[in-house]
């Protein structure tokens, strides 16, 4: 039933708008051992917009996000079925190199996880392992640019050699974003990036997401519906492993088509 609903939803909400699509998922099922966590999800991630995944705890939104850069490969017993394409290439195809995929699809986690290295080395990490900088000067330029884009440069430019773990929680999370954008990805996945932060740090991250929009395709998982409404243009509502509804954020929050979406958004459960 969901595939059918989705097909309707997709045609309904995208009618009249031409979008560049970065990633396409069709009929994705994810299993953890015998348990099915994602049931037949189909979705499109647009290139120039922010897509928010919302839903109650355990609905599978984080699991689905992790299938988009194959981070579920690191979970033993996890199995992914279906078809996920990045610019038309099947990312689960045997010819797809997971290292290159993750360089193109970056990720920011729920809890800030800077490496116990200096701020500079944190940002330079991805650039080093992918060999993207040919000289020290180029590396410095990449680090500076990434920190500037992540809105952290002014706060840390005088102490690039301090440990990344010594920063505040909000700064650490922006450092992780800088680290992700340093390898110049096409897509950035954010898994509840503000859930461990205070309101001021959250506001800064949200502002940053606004600024990054257009340069990267962004998919963000959030528990906070106001946040979804504030930062995203497209919203997907997950429930019990199903994609219940997917459409323009403004429409979803004012005029949901599905009763379950309406109940969730108005706080009846979740």
């Amino acid at each position, binding site marked *: 039933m969901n595939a059918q609903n989705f097909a309707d939803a997709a045609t309904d909400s995208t009618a009249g708008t031409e979008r560049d699509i970065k990633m396409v998922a069709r009929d994705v099922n994810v299993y953890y051992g015998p348990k099915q966590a994602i049931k037949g999800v189909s979705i499109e991630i647009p290139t120039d917009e922010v897509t928010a995944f919302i839903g109650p705890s355990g609905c599978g939104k984080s699991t689905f996000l992790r299938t988009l850069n194959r981070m579920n490969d690191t979970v033993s017993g996890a199995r992914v079925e279906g078809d996920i394409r990045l610019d038309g290439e099947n990312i689960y195809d045997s010819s797809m190199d997971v290292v290159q995929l993750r360089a193109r699809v970056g990720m920011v986690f729920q809890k800030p996880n*800077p490496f116990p290295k200096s701020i500079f080395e944190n940002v330079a990490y991805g650039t080093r392992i992918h060999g993207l900088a040919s000289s020290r000067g180029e590396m410095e330029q990449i680090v500076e640019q990434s920190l500037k884009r992540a809105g952290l440069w002014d706060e840390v430019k005088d102490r690039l050699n301090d440990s990344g773990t010594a920063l505040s929680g909000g700064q650490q999370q922006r450092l992780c974003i800088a680290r*992700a954008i340093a390898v110049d990805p096409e897509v950035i996945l954010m898994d509840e990036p503000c859930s461990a932060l205070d309101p001021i740090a959250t506001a800064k991250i949200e502002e940053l997401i606004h600024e990054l929009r257009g340069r990267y395709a962004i998919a963000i998982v959030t528990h906070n519906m106001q946040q979804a409404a504030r930062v995203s243009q497209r919203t997907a509502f997950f429930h019990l492993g199903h994609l219940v509804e997917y459409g323009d954020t403004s429409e979803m929050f004012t005029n949901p088509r599905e009763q379950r979406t309406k109940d969730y958004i108005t706080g009846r459960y979740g």
Partner: protein
Amino acid sequence: MTFSVALLLILALGVVAWLTARGKAAAFATSARSHSRPGHHGWYVALWAGVPALIFLIAWSATVPGLVASETLSAPAAVQLPADPMERSAVMAEVRGIASGELAGGFHPVSEQLAPIYRSATTRFGWIGFGIAALLALGGGAYAWFRLTPSFRARTAVERVVMIALIAASLIAIITTIGIVFSLLFESLRFFAKVSPIEFLFGTTWSPQTAIRADQVGSSGAFGAVPLFWGTIFIGAIIAMIVAIPLGLMSAIYLTQYAPPTARKWLKPILEMLAGVPTVVYGYFAALTVAPALRSFAATVGIPGASSESALAAGLVMGIMIIPFVSSMADDSIAAVPQSMRDGSLAMGATTSETIRKVLVPAALPGVVGGVLLAVSRAIGETMIVVMAAGLAANLTANPFASVTTVTTQIVQLLTGDQEFDSAKTLAAFALGLVLFLVTLLLNIVALGVVKKYREAYD
């Protein structure tokens, strides 16, 4: 004799006290709301009945021999005793033997006269002790019994006794350690009165044989311990670590990062079993298998100074023995690096080996270093392997195929066989022991500090 009877009596009184006090408390617990459970009241009275009496009994049994001896010596017959203290104590030993019935008669005539006095004194003091212990048990029990009321806080008192018992148990290990340090320290001071600490710590000649006769050759007695320290460091901290650090670290990395759960389930206990093999078994493996093989290899290749007992043989086998220590410490520290760190690196497109090299190992490094220091402290204190495989010649050499000796080997050499405890040769063992103790203590303190600091970083 009376001691064991008194002990049984006290235990019996304790049981009786427990049962009756519990009964009394159970009776008033039904009518009023009691502060403590009947069992607590029972234990309270039983402890009062048993503990003071037991403490007295132990103290008494320690003082009785002295009392008996002084009473025997003050008897009129004792004036015939020889004045020399050694002869005197020999006679007293005979007296004790006759009194207990182990000897039929004494070598010295006085001992047979003194034996009855000794025997009667023993019996009398035995009964005095028995009586006082019984009075203490009854008195203590009665005191506690009359304090029992519904509002009496027996539970608090019993819990406090439990705590005191636990403190005493933990103090025993600490006090023993302090005792060991002091015994080492005093014997070492006696050694340093004969040999200057400067010569001991910085001298390069070790030849502990001291001359018994003036015309003996080559027994001048030189106590420069540098060759021993070098041998210990060469085997324990250099060769053994060259083997143990890479192998232990790599096995920890395989076990934590690559091994499927089934492989881990089997491999980890097998690896840890290495730590349970008695070191003497490693010792003969080193001496009988590894050392001859190394010597013939050295002979074939043409390395000079190769000996059938070599630093390399002992060091290699010791390194194998140490692998589980390094591996399990490294395993713990790598496993303690948060999963989010690993995910963060993998999500950047790093491969598993890049993640290990650039993120996990650096993050786990303090823990690994702590583990290595603990392993070094164990390696330099290790005795059996080096005694069997490293040799006795105090060579100051960097040739791993040559024979060297270690601090522990020399301690074994100095303290086995017949000893006189006033010669520098024997006392040198204590000075060596003190140095070894201080070094391992320092290593342990540093290692635990490093590990602790690291643990705090992620909690």
